[in-house]
Structure formats: structure tokens, C-alpha cells
């Protein structure tokens, strides 16, 4: 995720767009997971956690509605909660030794655990893929899911590892000179995805 504010950032997704793509992703999850009954959503801090919570809410709406229409009723019946948690990947990063230690974020695994379940990792931007690799390592120390899938709001390309997303809100072809910044109301006070130009880093900052 970009941490630079870019002076000339241009919104590529606005609030309603984000709501719409999250709804679509939720439907895709239900479809692919055949009802989402064993889905556990794990957001990657910080913004992935908020996206996971929003997705969970949408999934609950969908399964309730589906249940009401007389089709297959998921286990737990109407109103059941979709387990959602967070997965901090800080200590699993492959560049841990290249920076001062960072403050840790919360890893919060739902009480149901992840063994035998379908874990959907949720993040805001998919870029090099290194974060997701770290997340897979972190998952490995927590349990053994039936399967792991990945949902991202934006895929901006430039993968450095053989990793792909199962659910993508928006494919956004970018150049490496551009920045992608996701803003969410919970953290930033508004919902938006901003595309900007990378500021020239002052000497010594890197």
C-alpha cells in the first residue's frame, strides 16, 4: 500500500464504485464457495481488515436472502455470522531485516479457527505479491485451511511472485512510476481509490 500522499492523485474508484465491487465479490465468493458456509475472511491490516468486515456483512445479507428464497439453507441458518478476522504479516515479511522493526498489528483468528475451512484473504491492493506470500506463511503457523483464496480491491499488476487473486474489484494497469492509494471511511474518513504520480524520493529517505 502506498503511504505517500500524491499531490496529483486522481480517483479511479469512488465510494459507490467500491460498494458495488465489494457486492460483486461477495456474490462471487458465495457462488464459488457454494454457499459460503465454511468461509472465514481474514483481512490483512490495516485496510484489508475493513474490507473483510464489509465483505462479511455483504455475505451475511446474501446468504440470508438466499436462505429466504427457499434454496439451500446454509448451516447455522438465517442470520448466521460470517467469521471474520485479521492476519498481521509483519514478522513474515521478506524485507523485515531491511527496515527498523515495525509496530505489530493485530492477528485475530475467529474462534472457529481455520482448520478445514475456506480462508479468503482480503487486502486492498495486490502489487508484487510479497505481502500475500507472507500471509500464506503466517497462515501456515495458525492452522490448515481446506483452501485459501485471495480477494483484493485493486490489482495493479507488476507481480514478482507466482500469485494471483481469486476475486478482483478492479484491474488497474499502472506504471511503476504511479502510486495507488486506497482510502476507506473507517481509517481515512472517505472511500476512494486514488491513482497518483510517485513523488521523487528525497535523498536518503529510502
Amino acid at each position: 500500500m502506498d503511504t505517500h500522499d500524491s499531490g496529483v492523485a486522481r480517483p479511479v474508484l469512488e465510494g459507490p464504485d467500491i460498494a458495488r465491487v465489494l457486492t460483486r465479490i461477495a456474490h462471487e465468493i458465495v457462488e464459488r464457495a457454494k454457499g459460503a458456509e465454511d468461509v472465514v475472511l481474514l483481512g490483512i491490516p490495516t485496510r484489508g481488515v475493513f474490507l473483510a468486515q464489509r465483505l462479511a456483512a455483504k455475505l451475511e445479507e446474501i446468504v440470508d436472502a438466499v436462505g429466504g428464497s427457499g434454496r439451500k439453507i446454509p448451516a447455522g441458518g438465517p442470520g448466521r455470522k460470517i467469521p471474520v478476522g485479521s492476519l498481521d504479516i509483519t514478522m513474515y515479511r521478506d524485507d523485515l531485516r531491511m527496515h527498523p522493526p515495525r509496530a505489530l498489528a493485530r492477528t485475530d483468528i475467529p474462534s472457529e479457527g481455520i482448520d478445514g475451512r475456506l480462508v479468503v484473504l482480503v487486502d486492498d491492493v495486490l502489487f508484487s505479491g510479497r505481502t500475500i506470500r507472507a500471509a500464506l506463511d503466517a497462515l501456515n503457523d495458525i492452522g490448515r485451511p481446506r483452501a485459501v483464496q485471495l480477494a483484493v480491491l485493486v490489482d495493479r499488476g507488476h507481480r514478482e511472485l507466482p500469485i494471483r487473486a481469486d476475486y478482483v474489484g478492479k484491474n488497474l494497469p499502472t506504471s511503476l512510476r504511479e502510486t495507488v492509494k486506497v482510502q476507506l471511511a473507517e481509517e481515512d474518513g472517505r472511500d476512494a481509490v486514488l491513482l497518483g504520480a510517485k513523488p521523487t524520493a528525497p535523498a536518503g529517505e529510502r
Partner: protein
Amino acid sequence: MMRHLISAADLTRDDAVLILDTAEEMARVADRPIKKLPALRGRTVCNLFFEDSTRTRISFEAAEKRLSADVINFAAKGSSVSKGESLKDTAQTLEAMGVDAVVIRHSASGAPYRLATSGWIDAPVINAGDGTHQHPTQALLDAFTMRRRLTGPDAGLGQGLDGKRITLVGDVLHSRVARSNVDLLHTLGAEVTLVAPPTLIPVGVETWPCEVSYDLDSTLPKSDAVMMLRVQRERMNAAFFPTEREYSRRYGLDGDRMARMPGHAIVMHPGPMVRGMEITAEVADSDRCTVIEQVANGVSIRMAVLYLLLGGNEPAVTHTRPTASEEK
């Protein structure tokens, strides 16, 4: 935060809160099936213990192993190796072996400081207790225990111990735990009171950021936490107090005294306890006594300290540097 952890007095409030917050995340690892994190993989940490302390040593060792560090234990007991040449020679040996950090326990006050500043070794030094000087990780785990009990594990995140009234009772003169706690608790905003017979309060205490009282009974009702310090029976022979019986009558914590503490107040002890001396079995075994929690919290705190000192390419700094990385 500095490169080394020598004294609780060296920690800023931000440093201390960061350690406590990090420890809170570390504590959650203890609930997982695999109690292991990769943060220190490939790093070698030496536990250099010139003084017997199985409890502190295994606490550090557990913390190091949970962070995937390679651990070397070096126990140098007895007077023949407590000579200065030995510390220097040992340090240089460890340096030559490529040790990435040294956790040192020593009976001589200042030995960790000397190790960190003498040029004998380049690795970061973590003080696991030196003489009657400092025991910073003990103070951190005590503060962590207080914050969890008095504020709450999650509610406490980002918080200090502002306004909390902490009473330390016992042999302050010979206690590194007391010195470290006074420094750290003051930094975190707590109000500290030391209670002891005048013989066990050091000359020069007047500059410490705390109150001093000789009367336990009047202090107890105004305490959110009461920490009992170990009193060694040998002190009696050096005339610090007349008898064990008189000491425990005037400064020991028993059930009656505990009843005078506020309902929410906790009883702490850095261990090992001398039951019947500074604390009765009734108090030690009550659910208001956090001594077992302190042990568990010690591992979390030491994990946090090790991670923050050794996890990156340099120690965590007080001021967050702007990161230039593209991805989180």
C-alpha cells in the same frame, strides 16, 4: 529506542508503550497451536548468565525460541569467572562466534553497561539484571501486568499507567527490581510509593521520582497495586531488621492487610516469594496475586523487547521514519 536495553530509565514513554503494545500482540501467540514466529530466524542470541537465575533465563530462552532465534546458553557460575577478565574474554569470544545479541545477567552493577560501552563486543546488549542496579525487562513485565489487570488487555493499548497508585514494599536498598520499576512506572505516569524500614531505603532516594513511607498500613488503602519485594533472610544478620518475625509483622502482607486494599487492587511479586516473610501463603495463593501471570507476561515482554531491538536492520526508533516501500 536504543540499541541496547540497559536501564528502564533509558526508555521514553513512547518506547515503553510500544513495548507493552507489542507484548500484547506477542501474548496472543501463546494461544496458538504453533507458538512460533519467524522474526529472529537465523539470528543467534546468547544468554550470558554470570549469576544463577533459572527463572529469568528460561523466560528469555522461551521468548527467543518463540521468535525462532538460535539460542546459546552460557552459565558462568562461581567466583573464579566473575572476575573482570572473564567478562571481557567471554564477550570477545561471543563476538568472534558471530552472536547477534547478548542477554546478560551479572552480580556486578553496571556490568551490562560496561559490556555495551567498552568496545569488547558489537552486538546489542539486553540487561537481564545487574547487581542492585537494574532489571528493565522485569519492570516492563510488571507494568504490562498492571496495565492488563487495571485497564484491560485491549483497552490498555497505547496507554500508560497514568494516575495509577503503585506501592513497592520491601528491600528497596538491594533491589534492582525496585529501581527499574520506579523509573519505568514514573515514565508511564504512575504514582509510586516505596515502603520499607528505613534501613532498607538507600541514602540518596530523595531524588527518585517517588514517595517514601515507613508505614505500610496507611499506604495500602491508597494503592491500585502492591508489589512485595523479596527479603532475603541474610539481611537479618546484617542488622537491617531485628528478626524475621518483626519484619513480617511490620512489612509483610497478610490477609488482614490485603483486605485493606481497594477491591480492584492487585498483589504482585517478582518471585521467588519467601512465604511467611514478606507474604503469607494466603495472599500468595489468592486470585488477587498476579505472580503466575507475571511469569507468563515475562515471556511476552521479552519477545517484544527482542523483536524491537533485533527484528529489523536497526532498533525500532521513537520517531517513525517515512517508509518508501510501495507495498505494505
